[in-house]
């Protein structure tokens, strides 16, 4: 009996060890494969890369053959003040939605500010065509429901490229139907006007991006990877709430301004230091990105 038990024990130990080794072997191999194919962390967020690349290429073709030519014509034909007005109009609708999202995120002060922007521009700014609020010192602060979900603690999830809609993530895809409820198109219940205004909004966005798009072609080694990494980094970062007090620098009198500014600057840096004199951390005050998961 004890013989059998000892034999079994030995066997299971041997199997266990072998198992471990196999698992370890496979593990290293997978690791190496991952390293080789994937390079680094960001890419593990892209499990559907081969599919995404196909959709991205498709979108690129559509853009090249349809959207970009239309946007180019639009920016050449429509006078700049008109285009600015149209851009402001769409921006204003976005502000209302930003205000709602800021509230949902619990950033009430910023939420009220965006609400004010919307109120001012919708009335004095002639339904948003003029952006008076910015001149009055109410800075724009765009938010959407995807950001709100992120703020609530949801990670971006895997990267997805949707046909026509373009880059997204699992989280932002979940948010998309909600965000659509606040898109300019919903202002109109007439189907044709809906389509018209949505198309105009699309052309407006693309037109704003014309020059930058050409530059991007020149600096991205692989356009797909570049767009993806920019998207994931951008959507995953939460820029310290943005509700800090901001001191606006006034250019104009060159070195004099720099000198004058010197005193408050060192005062500003001294204040938090004396308030919290501990910590000799050798790390950036702001860890790389609070959002890196």
């Amino acid at each position, binding site marked *: 009996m004890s013989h059998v038990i000892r034999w079994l024990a030995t066997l299971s130990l041997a199997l266990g060890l072998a198992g471990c080794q196999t698992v370890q072997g496979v593990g290293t191999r997978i690791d190496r494969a991952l390293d*080789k194919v994937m390079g680094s962390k960001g890419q593990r967020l892209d499990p559907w890369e081969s599919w995404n690349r196909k959709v991205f290429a498709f979108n690129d073709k559509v853009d090249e053959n349809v959207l970009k030519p239309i946007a180019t014509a639009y920016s050449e034909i429509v006078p700049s003040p008109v285009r600015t007005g149209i851009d402001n109009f769409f921006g204003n609708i976005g502000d209302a939605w930003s205000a709602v999202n800021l509230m949902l995120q619990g950033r009430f002060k910023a939420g009220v500010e965006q609400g004010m922007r919307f109120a001012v521009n919708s009335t004095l700014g002639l339904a948003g065509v003029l952006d008076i609020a910015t001149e009055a010192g109410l800075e724009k602060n765009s938010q959407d429901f995807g950001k709100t979900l992120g703020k609530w603690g949801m990670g971006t999830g895997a990267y997805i490229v949707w046909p026509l809609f373009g880059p997204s993530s699992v989280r932002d895809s979940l948010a998309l139907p909600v965000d659509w409820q606040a898109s300019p198109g919903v202002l109109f219940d007439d189907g044709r006007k809906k389509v018209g205004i949505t198309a105009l909004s*699309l052309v407006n966005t693309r037109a*704003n991006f014309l020059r930058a798009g050409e530059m991007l072609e020149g600096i991205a080694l692989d356009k797909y*990877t*570049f767009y993806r990494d*920019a998207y994931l980094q951008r959507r995953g970062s939460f820029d310290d709430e943005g509700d800090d007090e901001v001191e*606006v620098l006034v250019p104009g009198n060159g070195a004099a301004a720099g000198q004058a*500014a010197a005193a408050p600057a060192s005062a500003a840096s001294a204040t938090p230091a004396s308030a919290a004199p501990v910590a000799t951390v050798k790390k950036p*005050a702001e860890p790389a990105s609070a959002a890196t998961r």
Partner: protein
Amino acid sequence: MTLLTSLRRLLAVATLGLGLVHAAHAADASAPDLLIRQLSLETIEAVKADKDIQSGNISKIIALVDAKVMPHINFTRMTSSAVGRFWRQATPDQQAKLQAEFKTLLVRTYAGALTQVKDQTIGMKPLRAQPTDTEVVVRTEIRGKGDAIQLDYRLEKAGAEWKIYDVNVLGIWLADQYRNSFAQEIGANGIDGLIKSLADKNAKAAAPAAKG
């Protein structure tokens, strides 16, 4: 569409990031926020004052960057961070080439972006750092039309001076932004492959850049 807007802004302001800084020899590098403050102010002024920069005169911009900005950037660290773990596998010669091509790539980005700078002002956010820190993040934002554009700098203390080693535009750290692209290229064609593809990109862009 958010991404398009983001990228457009990224380009529009990356410029101000490492800053095409005029007269930066006067910049005081003894405190990180002071350095950024002065570089920012001088950048805005230089861009607004110089028609050549606004129209994207790339050789002029490169000369400016070399003379004024580079002294305040630890470009070796920035490049090695973008190249990641492959950096140590590179020979000194390869490292130098990588650094040169990466620099050209970034400067080209700024050159293009500079043409988009108009009525922006810069806002400084409070510095959250201890006097003993040797690495800090200085947070600023560009204010103009539309959303304020987040623009943060990572600085390290090198001796008595502070040096920039990464820039964050709109939540995107530039070294991180290139890490996957670089790794992908090195994975496929090795370090020399990456150097070559960077050089090709730069050479290709050098021609049409003239027309702005």
